[in-house]
């Protein structure tokens, strides 16, 4: 197969004979190092973020070791999918900080979007040379770094320990080194958690300007649709502020193109979820990274789309061959609320389970946007699927539906001690699941960053999986 036929303008998007994927498996950090030594140099040269840019600085196909050296120590403890697509994904995701600083250096405007998890970047991306990112996603960084430094910085500003790990974002604002100081901060509030709303409020001191956007908290399911007009008006304010910042009047077509691009990502992820949950072709850890890419595409939608296409081609090929990365006999669980510590996903899979459904508080980002409607209206409508917009019953229903669809045998709810919605929702969701499906539910709080999962939690997970096994 020729190099040309494999290479799209945004890089290779399918498995390649230059580096044929080994038999699907989860491999350790060290095993990836050995595998990476076999990756041809040409492939390393091939992948660049900001695809039109082919300068050396924008290469990103590096193994996890590279990022562990730069401080992401937790990577040494995880297990990874052994495909080239997964390697590419990790390389791309891990160098996002660098990418954001490069964006600034290359004259792009860097816009911090906060709180809404998925909608506002679709608007921001309709403006030329603007890069949106979520400081919210810094919440994984203390775990990846096995460090409290960002939490300590947040504590100095007033947010102590007994709260959500999202406070790391405030620490990152204060440190000025995890992302460039944004040109504008668009902070959405309302249908989010208190912890993060508090982070946004305190981050205002670091913002050149903060535009506050209301996200409605619908009271009842029946009112869902009727709150959309208010959200459209809020998004109109985003457009106006962006126009003022950029001096560019965004056209309906530009907005539509941005919706189409976002939908391309959302559709790819939808298909990946189907394949992973039904046929176990990708591990939970990679799938979590993939799902969260729907938020802001790791600050480069074009290249992230190519990464996803690559992943999907790999997943489809595995599915077609009947190959799995997780055994068919693995215990099937639905996971509610993303674990801040990614090691938990690795641990659960190591102990014979696989994730067949997720409610990671980002439903709004998974929803395909209606392309037949005007841009802002369609974005607002898709946001009405948001995880935190309604009551806990609605979130529970999403988990219940997925559990039914994929024959889940148990539900895991991970939370954060002192997290505002975790404290109130966890038990409610567990009760709803138990009442409707009679499934065992494990609810636990994720411990602060560490180099291992606490023994007590290990025992609880082990016992939970034993219960699931005994029910077969």
């Amino acid at each position: 197969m020729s190099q040309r036929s494999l290479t799209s303008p945004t890089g290779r998007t399918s498995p390649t004979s230059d580096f044929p994927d080994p038999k699907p498996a989860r491999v350790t950090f060290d095993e990836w190092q050995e595998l990476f030594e076999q990756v041809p140099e040409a492939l390393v040269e091939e992948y660049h973020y900001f695809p039109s840019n082919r300068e050396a600085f924008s290469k990103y196909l590096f193994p996890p070791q590279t990022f562990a050296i730069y401080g992401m120590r937790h990577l040494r403890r995880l297990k990874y999918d052994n495909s080239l697509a997964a390697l590419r994904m990790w390389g791309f995701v891990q160098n996002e900080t660098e990418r954001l600083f490069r964006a600034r250096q290359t004259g792009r405007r860097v816009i911090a979007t906060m709180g809404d998890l998925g909608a506002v970047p679709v608007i921001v991306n309709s403006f030329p040379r603007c890069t949106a990112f979520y400081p919210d996603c810094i919440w994984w960084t203390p775990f990846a770094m096995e460090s409290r430094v960002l939490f300590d910085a947040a504590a100095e500003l007033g947010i102590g320990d007994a709260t959500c790990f999202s406070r790391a974002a405030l620490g990152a604002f204060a440190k000025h080194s995890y992302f460039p100081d944004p040109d504008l901060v668009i902070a959405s509030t309302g249908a989010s958690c208190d912890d993060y709303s508090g982070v946004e409020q305190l981050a205002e001191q670091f913002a050149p300007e903060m535009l506050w956007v209301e996200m409605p908290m619908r009271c009842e399911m029946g009112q869902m649709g009727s709150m959309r007009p208010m959200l459209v008006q809020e998004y109109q304010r985003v457009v106006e502020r962006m126009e003022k910042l950029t001096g560019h009047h965004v056209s309906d077509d530009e907005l539509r193109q941005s919706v189409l691009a976002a939908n391309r990502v959302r559709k790819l992820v939808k298909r990946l979820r189907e394949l992973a949950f039904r046929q176990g072709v990708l591990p939970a850890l990679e799938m979590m990274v993939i799902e969260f890419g729907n938020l802001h595409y790791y600050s480069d939608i074009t290249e992230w789309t190519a990464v996803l296409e690559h992943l999907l081609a790999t997943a489809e090929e595995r599915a077609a061959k009947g190959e799995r990365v997780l055994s068919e006999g693995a215990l099937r669980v639905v996971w509610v609320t993303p674990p801040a510590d990614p090691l938990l996903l690795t641990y659960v899979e190591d102990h014979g389970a696989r994730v067949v459904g997720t409610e990671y508080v980002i439903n709004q980002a998974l929803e395909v946007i209606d392309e037949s409607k005007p841009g802002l209206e369609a974005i607002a409508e898709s946001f009405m699927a948001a995880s935190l917009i309604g009551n806990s019953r609605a979130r529970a229903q999403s988990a219940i539906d997925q559990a039914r669809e994929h024959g889940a045998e148990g539900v895991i709810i991970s939370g954060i001690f002192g997290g505002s919605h975790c404290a109130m929702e966890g038990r409610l969701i567990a009760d709803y699941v138990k009442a409707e499906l009679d499934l065992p539910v494990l609810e636990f709080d994720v411990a602060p960053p560490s180099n291992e999962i606490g023994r007590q939690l290990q025992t609880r997970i082990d016992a939970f999986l034993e219960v699931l096994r005994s029910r077969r």
Partner: protein
Amino acid sequence: MELIPRATFEQIRHERVEELIAARKQGTKVVGYFCIYAPVEMVQAAGAIPVRLMRGGQAAEEAGEKFLRADACSFCNSCMGNFERDQLYQQVDAVLSVNTCDMMRRLPESIEKHFGIPVYQLYMPRTSEPLPHRVAEFRRQLDGLAGELATLTGSAIGAERLESEIAAFNRLREMLRQASDTRRMNAPLLSGGTMLDLAATAWLLGPVKAISLVEEVLRILAARPRPETRRPRLMLGGSILTEDDRWLLEMVEEKADVVTDILCTGTRWFEGTVPERGLSPEVGGGSPLDRLACFYFSRPCMHRRPNSAMYEYAQRLAREFRVGGLVYKTLFYCDPWSFEVRRLQEAFGLPVLHLDTDYSTENREQVRTRVEAFMETL
């Protein structure tokens, strides 16, 4: 000597509960509410009796932990406990809840689930800038509430009755303000503790009886000679202060005067008035629901974004009441208030005592030590 003995307020409370029991037997509905954003005028105009649910207490908190996690705030846990054990809470036919903080947003779901009490959740935009579309959304929410109340009581809210209730609650706000304002002077006679009792009782009684009670208090105040001693003048702030938190005020007021507060169970309820019909179109125009929407939307609270109006409110009161320090009591896991401590200290430039507690009584002497140490710094 206490201006009005605590026992008097407790007796009034007891009698009021008996009245509520009797009223319910006649078919009148009792609607419980928690916060300053609940439009009590509408509840009353629908023929129901609004009662503010503002008890805390260790036993109730412990009882509530059966239903909620231990890291839910103490107020939410105690609410659940009080629905199980407090006679007033047990009179509640429906709950009017406002989406304020995360925990209060989800508490009603637990109330409904565990006690079978119907809940109406009013959506108040979290953003504070009164943009027309935001106020309009809140106005629409009030329409929805009116419909729910009509269903509950079987009686639609008439415009005349609503105007009348607006006037009545405005009068109550004005009277409570007058009582609170007596603390502007040096050596105030009205303690912070009595003010808390007075307000809590007023919210239980409803405007007619409450106005009489406040008038009586004002008469007593006017007749009393003022002491000449001067003590530190303090402001109280933080998470909701319940009827069961009076011990803190008593402790602080052994050595200082609590002259004002920024509490939702304090001045923030009676600050301002709903524009009444017949005033100038700028302030009194529109339907009563329009005016209620504007009024309630503009109430400051720390959870609103941005919360600069809350800071302005606090700074204004600190200035007007010549405050020398702030006692800031937050509940464990109360993010909207506890996150702001550091910022508030910087904004005030005044000594701040931050107490972060639950409702347990075991730490009282530790709190006393901290309060006394704080007093020494003033």
